[in-house]
């Protein structure tokens, strides 16, 4: 199963909002994937075994080298949500 890391500053607030929305989206597409929530500061490169990272905050280079990063901010602001979902869909299918 494909792995999605959902990352924000606290691993609590905005990443949970992303998780809720991504879960809903994946459900509607019938895609199964493991979702993991992390706080950005605890993520070290050797820990990253994700197929894709969705983050509401900027991701340091040594981590974005390990997996493609999608900017999750549009899912919070509501502007440009579809593009994020489209990108995610491409990465997971």
């Amino acid at each position, binding site marked *: 199963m494909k792995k999605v890391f959902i990352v924000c*500053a606290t691993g609590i607030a905005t990443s949970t909002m992303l998780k809720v929305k991504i879960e809903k989206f994946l459900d509607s597409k019938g895609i199964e994937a493991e979702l993991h*929530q992390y706080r*950005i500061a605890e993520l070290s490169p050797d820990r990253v075994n994700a197929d894709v990272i969705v983050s509401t905050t900027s991701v340091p280079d040594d981590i974005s080298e390990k997996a493609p990063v999608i900017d999750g901010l549009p899912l919070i602001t*509501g502007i440009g949500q579809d593009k994020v979902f489209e990108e995610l869909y491409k990465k997971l299918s």
Partner: protein
Amino acid sequence: MENILVQIGELLNNLGPLIILPIVILIIGLILRMKLLEALRSGVLLAIAFVGIFLVVGLLGEELSTIGAAFAEKTGTGLDIIDIGWPAAGALAFSSPVGNLIIPIGIAINLILLFGGLTDTLDIDIWNFWHMAFIGAVVQFITGSFVLGLVAAAINVVFALFLADWSAALMQKYFKLPGLSFPHLQSAGYLLLAAPFAWLINKIPFLKKLHLDPDTIRKKIGILGEPMFLGLFIGILLAAFAGKDAAGVILTGINTAAVMVLVPKMVSLLMEGLTPVADAARDFMMKRAKGKEIHIGMDSAILIGSPAVIASGILMVPVEIGLALLLAPLGNRTLPYIDLADGVFVTAMLAPLVAGDVLLTVILGAIVMGVGMIFTTLLAPAVTHMVETVGGVDIPAGYTTYTVMSDAAIPHAYATYYIFQSPVVIALIVSFVLLAVMYFIKKKYPLGGEK
């Protein structure tokens, strides 16, 4: 009118958050055009999160309330007020009577100001309305009046929006996030105090040359970015200094780690319930703000991936502990604890003031937290009252009192508390003068240059 509000306040108090919050969320959800079942789900999920939060806050009360006092006594430092951390504080603030009504009040005030042309920010970050509710709850404690608590919270909604407008240009430029602003008091609340000092230290050439590399710091001591280990270390250190035996030392380490890991898990559940409501609120507000030039108000958490913010945030751990000890003779009684894990919120909006220089950011952080610790000490009785009444935690007499580093350290949180100790008319006049001054500052001297 006042009578009705007082009665509402009593009703909220008597029924408690577990009954009130699902109902309030259900009603708000329906007003925001959510589907009935979805709104109900959000409400119940929120209540479940609170059941969990109260359980874990109870753990904080029972296991850790004696540590602070023992630490203060054994070490002779006098640091007997323990910081409960923002996740617990946020949950408690939301479940206070003022917190129950903060969402509709926040949305209403924001829309009024937006259409009145007084703000450019549309705050869609519903969760962080808790900061305003926190100040309201503190004022309710000092005045005994639910109505005044609401008024204080409302004043702080305005203040947060003004701070967001004021700093918008700088934040957008530095973090490359066009169209956003940050009415998030946990970070923006420190700006007003920090800005003059930033102006000053930017003029000292010597300091600028000591360039610390943010990436090296992050990689070297990044493990402190993980709350579990941070909690374990701090708990063990604290218990050792408090003179506990070996088993007690380890147990305190585990318990502290547990609080740092478990409270956020519960808050995450709360966010899950809140997300659909926040979405509905966003759409509701956006629809009404159509055609307006707006900045979307967001959680400062999205700024925290920036290396300078992470590095300086991690360095705030030793700095805050050192400051607490250093300031003890000057009257500080606050022992930094759970919020040590989130120094990044302190530094998030300070870093742009000094162009992302790590050392200068830490200096600014030390200034605002050093001053802030005096406030957290002074606000401890009010916070302890909230933990006891809302969280249902019994604190043995003569033991530790609680505070919250993240919020009680914000200068205008204490200012509001102080102002509302005077007669109501004076409190209101002073508040409005302060808001007017802030409005003038944001109009005339926006951070990040010309508007």
